[in-house]
Structures are given as structure tokens and as C-alpha cells.
């Protein structure tokens, strides 16, 4: 078999979905788990094989296109279901299948006791299918299939514990906010179709330079609309609000979808369309600013959150901001590089957090943790690696990518953005180590005998009076999917959770090395060279002096170190500093703690007005005015009818009178004519 069989990569998880749906109840948990993980693992294997095939080709031919069938063809417009593997999608597909596989494995442990185990893997496989479709698509519309597909799976997985109001709310919010983005994406694609007549990447990119004036309004509007789509999917201002709420889902979901893969789809799309974006400098500027602003804002919010997953969520938003401003400054390769490294360490962070939560019996509040380093050594070690990675300490993965982004921003003269990036970096380091310190260091702030920190207060009322078994109750509320005995001492997670942690930890360390470039080696980094067939080497020609490069590196390391130091200082050595700061900047803290009241703001300016307006539209306009007019005609006629009946008095005299009047009227008619 010479064919790389790209289609089989997404098809495998889909097949698993189908099998799981049909026979899942006979397979049992083990079978389900095996099926799900096996499918993804196999997909990974196929992906590796395909990528190796790709790598085996010369640079000019590093592109594999496989057309499965014509999706639809109307008039002169046609869309194929076809897949494209090039260096860019290769990275994505490896990350997705690889990290996805690890998270699948992890989930077999994490979700082991959940009664909806099968459903979970069903969704997860479905997600894999959608995500792979997204990254492997060779046209915008098929990409959109994956795009919306991952949105759907995100919706389903966030609302996985569907009996919980907040979970389903969050799922719905995620879907709808994404839809707003999709609206933009779709319109953007339509611009492309209208001008280029195609959605195929190759054809669009090939013809775009001839059809659009660079910097012209059409391409700007089109790319801005596409970027709107990206902000939805990748949680950027103004559509980032769904991501923190999405933490209602099971933690592996957060790791896979809301950290490693799906949320980076926006970045992927922008990078994929870099030809178009490069033609629209205004859009790029907007992207850069939005990215930087998001990076900063999310970081500030992350500083004060207490929920371990929420901190990570804001950190994700912030890191996505980095990726976007990378794209915005033209450093598409750096963006993708960060996507990759981020996938490793953020997945690890989430999984680690999941492990902590698992170990803590569903406690997510960091104020009730502490001192877990000894109790959960593997978790602790891996988490620490990830934290360092994200904080940007070399030679961990995060450093390389983040540094490249900052360097590119500096190099292209976006000093404001560069500064924002630096500020974000210090805050990242700070809040990540705050998380680390609060969780693993210091004294344990929970009842070590194993009592539940918050004693399932709401579990009781959620279940009311009816009897429930230990497992049945698990599905009833939040992240308590695996109720392996109430209480019990805090202990390390099982192997199927720790192994993926370890693998990811390794990747978090070495994952960045592929991107080691300029100051250390001659020419482009391996990563840069790999991506060159896609991104070309054109625009990023700003070569910084080696000294400047090193200077920037040093700066960023120093800044990260400062953040780390401050975190240790404020939360470990002298907790009073933290409290003092809270008191000192009460207003700021409140604003941060409440996420700048953005949700409330959106509620006030969009959600509620629309709801109220709809209500009025229905109750008043539809029922009273539109339907009222219709019924009014009826009432009017009935009124006339009643009136006419009055003339029908039953008296002969009246009738005769009308006859006479009729005669008169006829006379009059002829008199007038």
C-alpha cells in the first residue's frame, strides 16, 4: 500500500464511535476503553506513517492531497471531501492524535467510575474525528465541518454531566459563542468563494494575489471575518467568555479540547490562511492587538482565581493570545510552534490538575489544597515541569516558542505588543507558580483524615430523598465523576493517569527543541525549515543581531524568574503579602476576581436585551400587531356583520323602504351619468 490513506486517520475514531454506539453496551468499560484508545492510537500510528511519507518527499512535493468524493457541486461551485497533508497539518495531526491518545488513556483512569463512561468515550472519539477533519481538510468548507464538529463535541463534553445546570449552561454558551465566530468565518469564506470561486486552499491561495488587491478592503473584511471565527474558536477577545466556563466539563476534556487541540484551531486556520492574512495588514494589526490584549487581560484575571482549573483556563486564553499576536506580527511559524508546545505543557497541566482533583476527591479550590508534593509525587513532578515550561524557563518547551514570538514581535517593530508580551510573561510565571505553590507546597489546608473538604453539601439536595447507589450519584454533580469511596487519604493516581503525565512531561521538556533556531544554530530552526513549504520564508526576514537575540532571551528569562520569585514569596514564604495586596488594591482585585464583569456586561448589552426584545416581539408584535391585524380583519367583519344585522329588523316597512331607497339610488346613478 503506497497510499498514505489520510482519510483513515479521521475515519478510525469515527468507526470507533459507530462501534461504540452499536455494541458499546456489550463491550463493557474495558472494551469501550480499548476501542476508544485503540482507535486513536491507531490513528496516531497512521498519522506518523503519513507524516513519514511526507517527510520522505522533497520540499516541493511535501503535500499529499486525497479526494474521497465530491461533497457537492452546484453550478460552477464545487466542494470535495478531500484531505490535505502538508507540513503544517502534519504538525497538527501529530499533536492531535498524539496528545489525544495520551488523554484518552488518561481518561480511562479518570473516568473509570463514571456511569457514563461509554458516552464519554463516544464523545471523545467523535471529537477526535472532527478535529482531524479540521486539520486535514483541504478546503475551507470541509474545515468548517470539523470546525463546527469540534464545537459540537465541545458542547456535548462541557455539558457531559448534563444534570448540572451550570454544565449545560456552559456548553450552550460555548456553542453559541462559537456560532457567532462561525458566522464570521462563514461569511469570510463566502467572500473567498465570491471572488475566487473556490474553497480549496490551494486554489484560493494561488488565485488570491491576482484577485484581491493587497491591503484592499475586500480582503481586509474577508480576513477580519475569518478572524472573527478564530476569536470564537480560540477564545480571544471579544468571544473568549465561553472558555473559562467550559471548565465545567470533565478535566480530560479541558485538557484535550480546551487546551491542547480545539482552541488552537483558530490559530491553525489563521496560519493556514496566512497568504490571505498577509495581504491584509490591517487585519494582521488587529490580530496582533487583539492577541496581545487577550494575553494580558486573561493573565490578569488568572492572577486571582482560586479554582485550579479556572486559572488554567485563563492561562490558556492568555497563551492563545500569544499565538495570535505571533500571527499578527507575521510570525506564523512561531504561532504554530507555540501551539505545539502549548499542547504539551497545557495538556499536562490540565491532566495534572485533574490528577490533583482526583486525588483530592473533587476539590478544585486551591485554597483548600497545599502540600501535595509528597502525597502525589508523580503528579507533582510532572506538574512542576509543565509549570516551568509555561513560565518560560529554558530549556523547557515553553521558553523556545514564547521567546520566538517575543523576538518576532520585537523584530517586526511591534514594541507595544512586545511589551505586553513581556508583561504577560511575568504574570504567567507568577500565577502559574502561585498555582503550583498553593497546590503542592506549604501546608495542607484540608482535613487530612480524608473528610471531604466541602462535604457534598449540594450532593444531598441534588439527590433529594430518593435512594441512590454510590455510582448513580456520581453523575449528578460536577466533576465528581469517580466516586471511589468518600474520603480516604489523598494518594497518587493510578498508572493509566500517571503514564500519560510522564510522557507529556517529557514532551514539555524536549518539545521545544525542534524550534531552537537562530542564535544557537545556523539558519532556520528545524521547525522553520519544516514549515517552509507552507509558510514560505518570505515575510519574516527581520534578522536580529545575535546579541539582541540573546538579550531578549535573557530579558524574558529574567522576567519569568521574577514572576516565579514573587509567587513563592507571596504565597509560600510570606502569605501576608498576598493578603495585603488584596486589601490594598481591593477594587482591582474585585475587578480581576470577577473577570472584569465581562459576562455581566455581555448579559446586559446582548443577552438580556435580545431576550427581552424577543419576548416583546412575540407578545406584542407577533401576537398583537401581526396576528392582531389578521384577527382584526375578522373582528371588523364580525362587527360589520352585527351592524348589517341591525338593518334586518324583520319589519316589512324597513324592507320596503330599502327597496324604495334602492330605486332612488338607481335613479340617482342615471341622473348623474
Amino acid at each position, binding site marked *: 500500500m503506497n497510499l498514505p490513506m489520510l482519510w483513515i486517520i479521521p475515519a478510525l475514531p469515527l468507526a470507533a464511535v459507530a462501534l461504540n454506539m452499536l455494541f458499546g453496551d456489550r463491550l463493557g468499560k474495558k472494551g469501550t476503553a480499548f476501542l476508544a484508545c485503540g482507535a486513536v492510537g491507531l490513528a496516531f500510528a497512521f498519522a506518523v506513517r503519513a507524516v513519514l511519507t511526507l517527510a520522505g518527499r522533497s520540499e516541493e512535493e511535501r503535500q499529499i492531497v486525497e479526494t474521497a468524493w465530491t461533497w457537492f457541486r452546484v453550478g460552477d461551485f464545487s466542494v470535495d471531501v478531500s484531505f490535505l497533508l502538508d507540513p503544517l497539518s502534519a504538525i497538527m495531526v501529530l499533536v492531535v492524535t498524539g496528545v489525544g491518545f495520551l488523554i484518552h488513556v488518561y481518561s480511562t483512569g479518570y473516568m473509570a467510575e463514571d456511569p457514563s463512561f461509554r458516552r464519554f468515550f463516544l464523545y471523545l472519539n467523535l471529537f477526535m474525528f472532527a478535529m482531524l477533519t479540521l486539520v486535514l481538510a483541504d478546503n475551507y468548507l470541509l474545515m468548517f465541518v470539523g470546525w463546527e464538529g469540534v464545537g459540537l463535541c465541545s458542547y456535548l463534553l462541557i455539558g457531559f454531566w448534563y444534570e448540572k445546570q451550570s454544565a449545560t449552561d456552559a456548553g450552550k454558551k460555548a456553542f453559541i459563542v462559537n456560532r457567532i465566530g462561525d458566522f464570521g468565518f462563514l461569511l469570510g469564506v463566502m467572500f473567498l468563494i465570491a471572488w475566487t470561486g473556490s474553497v480549496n486552499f490551494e486554489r484560493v491561495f494561488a488565485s488570491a494575489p491576482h484577485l484581491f488587491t493587497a491591503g484592499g478592503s475586500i480582503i481586509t473584511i474577508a480576513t477580519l471575518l475569518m478572524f472573527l471565527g478564530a476569536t470564537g474558536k480560540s477564545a480571544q477577545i471579544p468571544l473568549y467568555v465561553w472558555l473559562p466556563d467550559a471548565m465545567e466539563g470533565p478535566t480530560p476534556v479541558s485538557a484535550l479540547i480546551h487546551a491542547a487541540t480545539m482552541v488552537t484551531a483558530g490559530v491553525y486556520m489563521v496560519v493556514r490562511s496566512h497568504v490571505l492574512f498577509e495581504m491584509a495588514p490591517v487585519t494582521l494589526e488587529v490580530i496582533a492587538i487583539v492577541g496581545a490584549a487577550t494575553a494580558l487581560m486573561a493573565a490578569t484575571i488568572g492572577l486571582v482565581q482560586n479554582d485550579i482549573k479556572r486559572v488554567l483556563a485563563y492561562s490558556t486564553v492568555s497563551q492563545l493570545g500569544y499565538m495570535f499576536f505571533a500571527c499578527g506580527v507575521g510570525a506564523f511559524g512561531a504561532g504554530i510552534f507555540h501551539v505545539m508546545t502549548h499542547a504539551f505543557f497545557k495538556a499536562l497541566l490540565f491532566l495534572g490538575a485533574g490528577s490533583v482533583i482526583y486525588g483530592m476527591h473533587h476539590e478544585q479550590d486551591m485554597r483548600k489544597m497545599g502540600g501535595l508534593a509528597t502525597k502525589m509525587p508523580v503528579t507533582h513532578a510532572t506538574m512542576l515541569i509543565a509549570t516551568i515550561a509555561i513560565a518560560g524557563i529554558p530549556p523547557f518547551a515553553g521558553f523556545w516558542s514564547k521567546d520566538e514570538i517575543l523576538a518576532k514581535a520585537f523584530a517586526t517593530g511591534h514594541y507595544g505588543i512586545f511589551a505586553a508580551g513581556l508583561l504577560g510573561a511575568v504574570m504567567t510565571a507568577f500565577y502559574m507558580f502561585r498555582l503550583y505553590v498553593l497546590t503542592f507546597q506549604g501546608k495542607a489546608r484540608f482535613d487530612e483524615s480524608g473528610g471531604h473538604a466541602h462535604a457534598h453539601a449540594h450532593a444531598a439536595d441534588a439527590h433529594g430523598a430518593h435512594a441512590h447507589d454510590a455510582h448513580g450519584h456520581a453523575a449528578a454533580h460536577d466533576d465528581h465523576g469517580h466516586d471511589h469511596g468518600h474520603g480516604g487519604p489523598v494518594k497518587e493516581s493510578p498508572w493509566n493517569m500517571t503514564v500519560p503525565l510522564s510522557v507529556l512531561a517529557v514532551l514539555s521538556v524536549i518539545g521545544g527543541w525542534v524550534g531552537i533556531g537562530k542564535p544557537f544554530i545556523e539558519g532556520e530552526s528545524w521547525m522553520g525549515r519544516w514549515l517552509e513549504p507552507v509558510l514560505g520564508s518570505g515575510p519574516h526576514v527581520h534578522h536580529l543581531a545575535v546579541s539582541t537575540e540573546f538579550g531578549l532571551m535573557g530579558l524574558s528569562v529574567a522576567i519569568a524568574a521574577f514572576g516565579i520569585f514573587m509567587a513563592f514569596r507571596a504565597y509560600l514564604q510570606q502569605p501576608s503579602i498576598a493578603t495585603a495586596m488584596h486589601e490594598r488594591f481591593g477594587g482591582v482585585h474585585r475587578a480581576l476576581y470577577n473577570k472584569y464583569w465581562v459576562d455581566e456586561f455581555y448579559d446586559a448589552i446582548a443577552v438580556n436585551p435580545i431576550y427581552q426584545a424577543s419576548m416583546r416581539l412575540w407578545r406584542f408584535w407577533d401576537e398583537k400587531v401581526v396576528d392582531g391585524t389578521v384577527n382584526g380583519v375578522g373582528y371588523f367583519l364580525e362587527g360589520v356583520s352585527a351592524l348589517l344585522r341591525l338593518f334586518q329588523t324583520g*319589519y316589512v316597512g324597513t324592507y320596503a323602504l330599502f327597496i324604495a331607497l334602492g330605486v332612488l339610488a338607481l335613479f340617482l346613478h342615471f341622473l348623474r351619468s
Partner: protein
Amino acid sequence: MIPTEWVLALSAVLFTIGVVGVLVRRNALVIFMSIELMLNAANLAFVAFARQQQSLDGQIFVFFVMTVAAAEVAVGLAIIVNLFRLRETVFVDEINLLKG
């Protein structure tokens, strides 16, 4: 020689008197009499035209009208008698069981 116009005017006035009678009276019998006046007005017109045109058709018509009138009277009076038997009234403004 009486001008036809005169006769015609007379018949028109007579006809109108009949119409007015129908409109203003409430006694079914009197209303009926007024209708007879109208018929007679028509007859008058017929006769006048017949004379003007030197033709007998008009007079023949009058003859038929009289027959019809007689027949109508027979039936009409029978109906009125029946009405009176049932209701003890001949006033048409007391008869409005059917209305609306």
C-alpha cells in the same frame, strides 16, 4: 286630446302615492291597497301608451294586470286572514319573529 305626458305624470304621482302608502302605513291591508294603487298607476301608463301608439297591446296588458291583481288579492288576503287568525293583528310592525 290629452297629452300623454299628462297622463304619465298622473300615473307617476299615483304610483308614488302607492309607494308612500306602502312605506308609511302599518296595516297590512292598507299596504296592500297601496300596492293596488301602484298597479293601477302602471295600468294608467299602459293605457296612455296604448292610446299614443294606437295599439291594443297596452290595454291587453292592463287586462292581464287586473287578472294578476285579482289573483294576488285572493292569495294576499288569505294570507292576511291567516295571519290575523294566528296573531290577532294585521300590523306589520308587530310581526318580526324573523329578523337579524
